[in-house]
């Protein structure tokens, strides 16, 4: 039987139309966009066209967008680049407690190695934070707040406008990791009010290794790399023209398909959630019911540990992710779910199902067939079986 891929938040297949658009830039149009000759000019035109397209997509100026290798690099430049810029004047960062490690770890590194103050913004049971929480953590030393737009593990979409208003009042920069939300829900940097925004290609049916960072006009960052004048010296290195062309094409397709994809996948995901909750007792929905990326369902099966569920589903040909880092035999629960106040044992049984364009109702029905016996088997062997807990 064909495998079923329900891990689109990890990565997505590249759309054939995107591959077609990229093809020429591996061969015939291979030039270095910095070269003065016709080969270089040709690549440069492709690069700048892509920049304009992507800028239009998130409603910024082309000059406010620069290209990176992807989400992790964009997040690192946003956090570290602003920190080094502000170091002499201010030294306090606030990040969401449910951030991706690409934001959390650079912030922690600044804290441990460079003495920066560092606070995590608390979230509620559904993963949402509030302007009041943000106000409480702010000090006169705060120069950056970084809060993710659409959460990679639960799909919770943060109300950024309410948070960016708080930052604007106090002249504090706001960065958002929008890697999971761009292309799936409308993202407009002006409406959101953000100063920096990370995005990447491979979560939206584009290539791996191509991403971008939006930096609002007037916001200064210290580069992390040196060695060339590419991207206005903010990110030197020969541009990945093929990848960037692919990124632009992927966003163009995403824009075209957004309404349809989101309606269909939202309904299919809701159907899946309801069916699982109805068929498997002691199941918890960790994703919010509203304000959620349409195609994500994070569910916990009390008494069945996440890693074993993932491996068992893989053996049945269903690809999902536990959304938690396995650091020991007793799987370490996800920091996102723990921050949401979810019991550690419940969090250990969390599975992220992330649907995508190729997902069909037939596939979902097959998953609904193979999942219950797996959970039953694991619970029968578990010391924390819900029945024995009661």
């Amino acid at each position: 039987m064909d495998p079923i891929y329900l891990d689109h938040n990890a990565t997505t297949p590249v759309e054939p139309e995107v591959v077609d658009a990229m093809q020429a830039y591996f061969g015939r149009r291979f030039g270095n966009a910095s070269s003065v000759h016709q080969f270089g000019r040709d690549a440069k035109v492709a690069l700048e066209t892509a920049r304009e397209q992507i800028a239009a997509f998130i409603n910024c100026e082309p000059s406010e967008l620069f290209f990176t290798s992807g989400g992790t690099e964009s997040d690192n430049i946003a956090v570290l680049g602003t920190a080094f810029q502000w170091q002499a004047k201010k030294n306090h960062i606030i990040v969401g407690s449910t951030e991706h490690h690409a934001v959390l770890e650079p912030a922690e590194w600044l804290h441990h190695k460079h003495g920066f103050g560092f606070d995590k913004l608390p979230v509620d049971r559904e993963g949402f934070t509030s302007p009041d929480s943000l106000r409480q953590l702010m000090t006169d030393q705060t120069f950056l707040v970084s809060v993710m737009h659409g959460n990679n593990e639960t799909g919770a979409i943060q109300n950024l406008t309410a948070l960016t208003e708080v930052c604007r009042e106090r002249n504090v920069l706001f960065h958002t990791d929008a890697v999971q939300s761009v292309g799936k829900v409308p993202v407009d940097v002006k409406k959101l009010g953000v100063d920096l925004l990370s995005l990447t290609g491979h979560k939206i049916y584009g290539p791996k290794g191509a991403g971008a960072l939006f930096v609002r006009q007037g916001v200064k960052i210290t580069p992390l790399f040196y060695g060339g004048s590419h991207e206005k010296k903010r990110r030197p290195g020969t541009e990945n023209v093929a990848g960037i062309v692919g990124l632009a094409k992927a966003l163009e397709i995403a824009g075209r398909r957004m309404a349809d994809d989101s309606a269909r996948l939202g309904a299919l995901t809701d159907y899946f959630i309801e069916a699982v909750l109805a068929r498997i007792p002691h199941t918890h929905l960790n994703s919010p019911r509203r304000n959620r990326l349409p195609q994500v369902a994070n569910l916990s099966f009390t008494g069945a540990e996440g890693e074993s569920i993932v491996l068992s589903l893989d053996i049945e040909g269903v690809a999902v992710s536990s959304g938690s880092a396995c650091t020991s035999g007793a799987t370490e629960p996800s920091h996102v779910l723990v921050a949401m106040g979810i019991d550690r044992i419940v969090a250990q049984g969390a599975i992220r199902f992330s649907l995508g364009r190729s997902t069909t109702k037939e596939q979902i029905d097959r998953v609904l067939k193979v999942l219950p016996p797996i959970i039953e088997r694991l619970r029968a062997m578990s010391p924390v079986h819900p029945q024995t807990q009661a």
Partner: protein
Amino acid sequence: MAVRVLVAMSGGVDSSVAALLLKEQGYEVIGAHMKLWDYVEVGGDIHKDGRCCTVDSITDCRFVCDAIGAPFYVLNLSADFREKVIENFVSEYRAGRTPNPCVRCNSEVKWDAFLLKAEQLGCEYIATGHYAIVERGENGRLRIRKGVDGTRDQSYVLWGLSQDALSKTLMPLGMLTKAKVRDLARKHDLRTADKAESREICFVADDNYRRFLSEWEEKHHRRFESGEIVDEAGQVLGTHQGTPFYTIGQRKGLGVSNPKPLYVQKIDVADNRVVVGGEDALYADSLIADSVNWMAADPTAIPEFALVKIRYLHKPAPARLIRLTDSRIHVIFQQKQRAITPGQTVVFYDGDTVLGGGVIRETSAMSAA
């Protein structure tokens, strides 16, 4: 439907071929590597070849599984391993004994946490690349018999397995020689075919257990106290750097000069002393073992005599077995044995078959009485 089996893969040629053979026999093979420790934790030479739990070994497992068409997973059992094997290893040395961590690992990790994982994944069996045979004896009990390749006998570290564990275990290499295993690996183009192997303690990467113990204790803000080296009459002959650095029968590295060679006779933790003496005093003909597990032998009817092995490279010697309790036994050898070492494993054989085993607690010279 094919029977599902979880193969414990170290990254070496043996477990690679075990997986290959089971696949050929029609099992649904799933490969898994147990991640038991990392170099940050245990120190030593990160580049040493043939080691388990390195990135290279995991990559080798991954390629072998890909080649034979089996899924492959890395299972992180390091918390279990640290608690049940490494910490035990250190505390045994601290208690004046010489532990056998491989035995502990087998019964406490491989045939416990790993077996549980296999059951969670719907596997009926686990399989390993041990050169040993699992079979059912005439008394109905499951047992381990030495593999066909006498030079690779691993039965000595497998005595601790329960009947339940054995009933879920396949050891497909038992009837093969190492040479044949390498041949099979070459024939199937497995990348581990000519890989060097290690037979030392896996987490002591440089085979220097003293270095390991010192670093481990330092990391945990403890250290070993130096003390006196004395002869059997209590006369002080020198200074030791901590009792865990000495093992029964050791001659080298004592730093004591004496007309005739001196050997460690006893580790006296209570008085923090290492007792040394002449070679004759190393011989004893009796030991008491505990943590006894009976395998081929019916626990209610253990044999009166057996061939008894007291360390990995020891030639089994005939002895009388006297049951003290269910888990404790008195072993009296027909002839005195050299350097019976508390903490080491004692295994009872009937020919090639493992009757059972235990852990040596104390030793005594019966015939002198």
